[in-house]
């Protein structure tokens, strides 16, 4: 999977209320509708600034707060191709993988707002075209990779009917 787009940059501790406010998430399961309000409390016009394929770039602890799966879904349906952050909160991280939103742990200090990036998930590398630099990616834990490769957790369950996670591959995590 290779993605190309521009960076939209935010700071540390972006919580799930900022990603999609509680007042919207209860109303509907229409993710296209929710997507219009993504990051609205931090930047009211954010949705209109997104070009399909762009990246959401942030600092530490991205996705902290509630367990709402509407958060990764709103990001995905807004047309963003991946989230790049220094670290992620654990429930958000699981939800993103389960719903097929790529989440990439890397040093985002090397990315400025508007930078043009290509993200190669298979090779585990980011090219910052604007700055002419390469940024290393922390590899996904094998168990996460397995779920992502199966096409998300729902597809995993359609295939196996349960959590079928290869212990051997996961040893040494």
């Amino acid at each position: 999977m290779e993605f190309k787009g521009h960076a939209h940059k935010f700071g540390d501790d972006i919580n799930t209320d900022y990603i999609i406010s509680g007042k919207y998430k209860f109303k509907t399961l229409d993710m296209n509708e929710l997507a219009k309000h993504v990051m609205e409390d931090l930047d009211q016009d954010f949705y209109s600034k997104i070009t399909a394929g762009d990246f959401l770039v942030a600092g530490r602890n991205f996705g902290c707060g509630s367990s709402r799966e509407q958060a990764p879904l709103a990001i995905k349906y807004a047309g963003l191709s991946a989230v790049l952050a220094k670290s992620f909160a654990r429930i958000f991280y699981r939800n993103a993988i389960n719903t097929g939103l790529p989440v990439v742990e890397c040093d985002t200090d090397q990315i400025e707002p508007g930078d043009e990036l290509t993200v190669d998930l298979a090779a585990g590398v980011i090219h910052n075209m604007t700055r002419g630099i390469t940024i290393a990616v922390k590899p996904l834990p094998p168990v996460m990779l397995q779920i992502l490769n199966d096409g998300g957790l729902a597809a995993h369950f359609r295939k196996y009917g349960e959590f079928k996670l290869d212990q051997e591959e996961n040893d040494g995590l």
Partner: protein
Amino acid sequence: MGQTIIEKILSNKSGKKVGTGDIVVAAVDFVMGQDGTSPLAINAYRAMEGQKLFDPSRVALVIDHSSPSPLEGVSNLHTLMRDFSRETGCKMYDIGDGVCHQLMLESGNIGPGSLVVGADSHTCTYGALNAFSTGVGSTDLAGALISGKMWFKVPETIKFVCHGTLPSGVYSKDLILFLIGQVTADGATYLSAEYTGEAIGALSIEARFTISNMAIEMGAKAGLMEADEKTFDWVKRYGGSGFTAVSADPDAVYAKVLEYDVSGLEPQLAKPHRVDNVAPLSELAGRPIQEAVIGTCTNGRLEDLRIAAGMLKGRRVSPDVRFIIAPASRDIYVQAMREGVLETLVLAGGAVVTPGCGPCVGTHNGVPSDGETVISTANRNFKGRMGNRNAEIYLASPATVVASAITGQITDPREFVSR
């Protein structure tokens, strides 16, 4: 090598001895979803081609976040949940029953050694009952509904040892706010927390719930405590039995051990817009507030309402303050009614709303206006959390909230409380 509480519970539930870093698929004892997360979980259950629940008697859905429904969209999602419960035979808690976490604590289904997953981040609350309980998303929840299992990475543990005695007018909420301020919002990410020491042992079980509830605000996967007589009394009161306490081994290995003496602690507040933006009350006293909220899964219990009523007997809240009370469950509501606690609060100028989440998450029931300041007993004060990004939220103990409601500005409760 010795084990921590979470290592032991995950060993018991996966049928083999596990340690930090292992990936385990473990059997869950109970699965819970609320109205903000269950509709997506039902979608995921269908996408997984789920045929039936692993055990309907171990599954509960709760309508608490937008309860009663303020909008037709919400009503339709609620109906989706009711239909699913009828189809699958799981337990359904409907409007007026209370906040999902309080209902789980009062269900008798959860006790020492249990493993619970809930599609709500504050599921960690049951750690105070010596259970490993944690928040998951809707798709993970659907997997648990079908299989009765969940995968986990066995986390390292950070141990908080709290020595001394909390001073009068200072509560478990002040203590957990202080600890979050110390370790920050991601200080325990990917870790389990254990809270121990004589200051924790001295707390009532209700006061302990407040601490475990906010473990997620430091990023933790769980907020565990040891079981004692108070733990078993609580479980027994709600008809639970057959639980065995799980203690950490003396030679268990911790990522970090942090020790504090709480004897000199003063009331603490989380300032806008972060839970780890914590300051002692003395730095904030005098700031005007327009709305005061007692309730939520953090501090909407009988003990909290009693503290509020004790301070408000014969007093009224400031005419410039809207005072909102949301009992955490129907049981608490009825008890508070019988004891005259609600009467005192209402006569003091309070507005009691339906047992449930109340105004906590900004769906209804007390959305602040632009430029207003709210003081609340909740666990989150993010910008926009209560439905208006142009309002500010301070988090505090019920006593601090009530003292501030009386004067109309952030006020030290020790001016009103004598314990």
